[in-house]
């Protein structure tokens, strides 16, 4: 039992301390990029787009 508890803690440590924060960072990055693209394509044009 001690061994299974030990491995459980080891496994959970990696998940909570590394995987979860890393996933949060990925999410923030993805949102930033998607928002940037959205603003670029569909944001209100800052000045009139007179045709070239």
């Amino acid at each position: 039992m001690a061994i299974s508890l030990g491995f459980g803690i080891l496994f959970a440590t990696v998940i909570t301390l590394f995987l979860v924060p890393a996933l949060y960072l990925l999410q923030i990055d993805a949102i930033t990029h998607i928002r940037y693209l959205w603003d670029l394509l569909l944001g209100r044009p800052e000045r009139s787009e007179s045709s070239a």
Partner: protein
Amino acid sequence: MSTRSEEAAERRFQRDGVLSALVAYLLWGVFPVYFKLVQTVPPTEVLTHRIIWAVPFGALILHVRRQWPEVRQAFSSPSTVFWLALAALFISANWLIYIWAVQQEEVLQASLGYYINPLMYVLVGVLFLKERLRRAQLVSVLLAAVGVSYLTIMGGQFPFVAVSLALLFTLYGVIRKQVAVGAMPGLFIETLLLFPFAMAWLSWLMLSQQAEFGDGSVSMSLLLSLAGPLTVVPLLLFAIAARRLTLTVIGFMQFIAPTLQFVVGIFYGEELTTAHLVCFTCIWTAVAIFSIDAFYQQKGRAAF
């Protein structure tokens, strides 16, 4: 510290412009592939779909970008609406010929047309706006004329498709330059003005069981409705690029589209005769002279 971040912002601004222009011209360049996919549909019906589906899709984009005030402003001036209607006439004729050309295996001629286009623009400027040509411009226009005449005489065919495409697109461009309406609102108003006619035509086709839309397979109907987004999206990207880049940069990048069309034409196994090759070589040289001249002109004018 702040100047560095401003510089970074400016670089990002420029980079986004180049990328937008690149994707826009890539899309325009491979556009013939789409018309090949709807090969079984007559060009007139494809044209009606381009117009009909561009209206709701354009409205959606205008709504998200909050550009309705620009549309309202354009509609408040009758002369603007008149010019946009005329522009709509020219661009729809251009679209129709383009679709027809692709389906008739004349992609190479369509490509030729868009290489000639900037030269035609210069020619129209001379004829109607009394502009004067610089020597390099004169040389490139003459060279293009030589290329077209060679194809006519030696190849035995006057490139009607190429010349009419270039002429119609140039007239469209000249008219659009006269009215101060943005690219997206402009396209929306043009397609909106054409909408009733396209709708009437398609209704008639559908009632007389001649339409491919609705009558054929579901996938074909979906493909046809894709014509709207395919018309709007490249122009949206172009509009984004146009206000970030100088005309010189845009001028260089515009040749991406006909170059890709040329590749697509070859890919579809269109015959490139010697007469074609001579004509294309003349046009390519003309385009090179024209662009280099424009580059140095720009450099001389702006010191930065």
